[in-house]
């Protein structure tokens, strides 16, 4: 019987089909196709909700001997939670988007990219094969590139899209390197096959383990916006809000977290892992939370809190303890719920009021009561105030930091600090716009239900799960924890743990958080402060590096591609001299056996002497005509050499062609200017040295070759058969027209082309509209 996992391709195909349906042009702005689009994520959500329990299912659907990859899916607790988040929040986002984009251009385009993104995300969390995972991973980068740059005529959007794809693209490529090393070390690219202890031991003890791990972590960190790569995410807020809500709360940014969670049982039990995750996660969470406090744009605040939350997740995954695993398992869910709600809230406010600046918003409570409730609930959950599900999460975080051997104070301090600031930031978004007097925004009404109901659902769920943790304890969270730790975990989520340190810490967090909120006064001044602080931040540094690199590229390119033929040739010839010289010096013998050589006669000396003088005349003559004539003489002397050494055919041809070349030259020359007369300069020395080096190498090599016995097998065959089989006595000609006739055939083609070329060069005059084609 087919297990549910084997039906995944059908699901993927359906989504793909609908993407194509959406991509086909439509006359109407908000057609039926876009109205029906929420059905796809809803259907998928139901598929994952009902089709699977938390037990692991793996299926190889297609494989090929020669490809390192196979089409295989695995679904376990971790995968299922993510799939549910992706499709569940996706469903709400699609409903929300239908409302948000009403009347806007390119709705279908947006939805098709969103669906593509959902497809990619599902692929990431369900693939069992490393390469497949990578394929979907890149697809998320690409589709998010299109989504972030959705308002493509806006310069800032383009910049953010470029930033996002640069960072995630680089991370992805590096990660691919890591994947391949991992796959090759493990001997398999199937993640599910790496779980047995021997394979894990092989992997972790391999010499390339550390670089491999660093590569994979780079992929995960860039995607999940860890410090110092975090800044692309706040930048990505240029996208339409449904996109931000989807990409940056629930899903894409968590792909990195997913990846870490997925590899945690395989790679987690190593020092590099622990150190890297705890330190980068820790820095990210506190740094981003701090940044969030100084923003005025709601989406910007949310973006930074998201970065911080991702930092928390990475941080927890680094600790590897049961509590930490339980914490992260829960926090993934918690964060998705309230953050998506927040984003939709921010989007709706923006949509209705035209601004997201919290320093300009106030008193929205009266007009938008449901939104206010959503804000409160989300902030509640965000702040970890009981009885929200957020409280459960925060509890577990503190428990795990407190239990961490050696660094418990530091880690706990960092966590508390982060949470204090996050608490305040939550209030900035969920509370601040609603409090106070209604000032600027007249005629505000409650927006259409599609703009607030989806957020409400999430906010309510956040509260519901907090009140009734058993709803998710066994069905969702525990299986996730099992996946992350690689062994059965036993999690009991409960609101009340008694009066202990954790509770005091929670209370401290809430108190100080509220205090912070009261102190914070968002506005231009604070923004200015944080912007100037940013000057030394990683964004500036990475920008500096990238600009530096572009500058370097520019410099190198201008140095190398400098337009001067002489330099090009010098580089090529210099390279030839170096490498050929090395081979000649290292591997040849420099012996000459005089006996093997023929005698020199005075005539030959004269001929060669004339040749030498002519060559020098071509080199140094100031007159072009004299140079050309001397070149002709060089040809003639060669021709005489051919005559002496038994090559009459060659002599005839060389002689005629040499003359024709000289004539051509002469015909051309009288239209050209005289030689540029230049005084002797150092460049002559360099050129001369290279020239002499090449010449000397050729002399040495030819003398060396002449020491070897000649091979005459093929010549003898020709000599034997020229008359008998090919019916000719001039063997050279027989070679030309018969033995190697194909060469000759091609050669006359060359000649014809050259003639056409000459004709066209001189005769063709383009009309104006033909100049560039």
């Amino acid at each position, binding site marked *: 019987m087919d297990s549910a996992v084997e039906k995944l391709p059908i699901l993927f195909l359906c989504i793909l089909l609908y993407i194509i349906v959406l991509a086909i042009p439509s006359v109407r702005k908000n057609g039926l196709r876009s109205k029906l689009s929420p059905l796809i994520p809803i259907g998928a959500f139901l598929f994952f909700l009902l089709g699977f329990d938390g037990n692991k299912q793996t299926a190889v659907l297609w494989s090929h001997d020669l490809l390192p990859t196979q089409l295989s899916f695995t679904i376990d607790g971790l995968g299922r939670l993510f799939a549910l988040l992706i499709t569940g929040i996706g469903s709400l986002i699609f409903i929300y988007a239908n409302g948000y984009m009403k009347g806007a251009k390119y709705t279908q385009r947006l939805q098709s990219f969103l669906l593509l993104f959902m497809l990619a995300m599902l692929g990431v969390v369900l693939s069992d094969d490393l390469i497949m995972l990578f394929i979907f991973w890149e697809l998320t980068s690409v589709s998010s590139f299109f989504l972030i740059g959705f308002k493509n005529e806006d310069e800032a959007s383009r910049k953010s899209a470029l930033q996002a794809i640069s960072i995630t693209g680089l991370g992805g490529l590096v990660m691919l390197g890591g994947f391949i090393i991992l796959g090759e070390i493990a001997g398999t690219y199937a993640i599910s096959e790496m779980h047995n202890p021997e394979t894990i031991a092989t992997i972790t003890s391999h010499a390339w383990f550390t670089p491999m791990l660093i590569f994979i972590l780079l992929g995960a960190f860039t995607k999940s916006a860890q410090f110092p790569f975090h800044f692309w995410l706040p930048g990505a807020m240029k996208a339409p809000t449904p996109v931000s809500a989807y990409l940056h709360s629930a899903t894409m940014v968590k792909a990195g977290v997913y990846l870490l969670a997925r590899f945690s049982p395989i790679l987690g039990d190593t020092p590099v892992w622990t150190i890297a995750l705890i330190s980068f996660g820790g820095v990210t969470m506190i740094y981003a939370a701090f940044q969030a406090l100084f923003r005025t744009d709601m989406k910007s605040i949310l973006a930074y809190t998201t970065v911080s939350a991702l930092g928390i997740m990475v941080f927890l995954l680094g600790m590897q303890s049961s509590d930490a695993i339980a914490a992260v398992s829960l926090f993934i869910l918690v964060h998705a719920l309230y953050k998506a709600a927040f984003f939709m809230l921010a989007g709706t406010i923006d949509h209705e009021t035209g601004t997201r600046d919290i320093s300009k918003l106030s008193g929205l409570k009266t007009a938008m009561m449901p939104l206010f409730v959503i804000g409160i609930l989300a902030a509640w959950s965000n702040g970890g105030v009981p009885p929200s599900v957020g409280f459960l999460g925060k509890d577990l975080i503190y428990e795990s930091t407190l239990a961490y051997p050696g660094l418990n104070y530091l880690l706990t301090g960092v966590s508390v600090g982060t949470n204090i600031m996050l608490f305040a930031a939550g209030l900035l978004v969920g509370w601040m716009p609603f409090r106070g007097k209604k000032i600027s925004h007249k005629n505000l009404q409650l927006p259409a239900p599609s703009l607030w109901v989806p957020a409400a659902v999430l906010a309510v769920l956040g509260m519901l799960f907090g009140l009734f943790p058993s709803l998710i304890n066994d069905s969702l969270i525990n299986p996730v924890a099992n996946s992350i730790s690689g062994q059965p975990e036993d999690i009991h989520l409960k609101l009340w743990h008694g009066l202990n340190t954790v509770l005091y810490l929670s209370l401290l967090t809430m108190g100080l958080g509220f205090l912070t909120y009261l102190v914070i006064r968002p506005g231009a001044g604070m923004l200015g402060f944080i912007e100037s602080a940013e000057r030394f931040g990683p964004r500036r540094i990475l920008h500096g590096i990238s600009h530096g690199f572009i500058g370097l590229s520019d410099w190198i390119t201008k140095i190398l591609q*400098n*337009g*001067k033929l002489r330099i090009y*040739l*010098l580089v090529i010839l210099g390279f030839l001299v170096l490498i050929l010289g090395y081979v000649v010096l290292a591997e040849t013998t420099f012996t*000459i056996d005089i006996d093997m*050589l*023929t005698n*020199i006669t005075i005539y030959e000396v004269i001929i060669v002497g004339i*040749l030498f003088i002519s060559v020098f005349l*071509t*080199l140094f003559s100031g007159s072009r005509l004299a*140079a*050309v004539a001397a*070149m002709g003489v060089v040809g003639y002397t060669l021709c005489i050499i051919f005559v002496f*050494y*038994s*090559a009459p055919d*060659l002599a005839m*041809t*060389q002689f005629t062609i040499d003359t*024709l*070349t000289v004539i*051509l*030259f002469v015909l051309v*020359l009288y*239209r*050209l*200017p005289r*030689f*540029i007369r*230049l005084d002797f300069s150092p460049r002559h020395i360099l*050129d001369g040295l*290279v*020239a*002499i080096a090449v*010449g000397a190498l*050729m*002399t040495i090599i*030819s003398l060396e070759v*002449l020491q070897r016995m*000649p091979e005459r097998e093929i*010549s003898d065959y020709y*000599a034997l058969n*020229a*008359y*008998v089989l090919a019916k000719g006595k*001039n063997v*050279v000609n027989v*070679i*030309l027209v018969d*033995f190697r006739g194909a*060469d000759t055939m091609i050669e006359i083609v*060359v*000649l014809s*082309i*050259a*003639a056409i070329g*000459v004709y066209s*060069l001189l005769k063709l005059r383009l009309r104006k509209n033909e100049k560039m084609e």
Partner: protein
Amino acid sequence: MEILLAITIGLLYAAGIFLILRRSMVRLIIGLILLGNGANLLIFLLGRISKGKPPIIPEDSKVFLDAYADPIPQALILTAIVISFGLQAYAIILVKRAYRVVKTDDIEEMITTDEI
């Protein structure tokens, strides 16, 4: 004689290279032609040289009766010569045309296509 020819080859290569490194297009072409001559002579020499034994079967015989020069290098050089003729003719005309259009014989003034 081989030594002399080997030195000649070296000289032809060196001169050709020195000339293609000049700024004048005419010298450039002459350099290429000298290089071509050098390569032809190299083929000729490395195919081994022998005096007075053209590879032509005597009139009254079906095969060679005594030693003969290796005909293959000769055939190769013939092919190479004719090809070079085509290429050189083209190159010479190119120079002419380039001079007409760019108005200079100086290669170092032809750098626009390399600019970013």
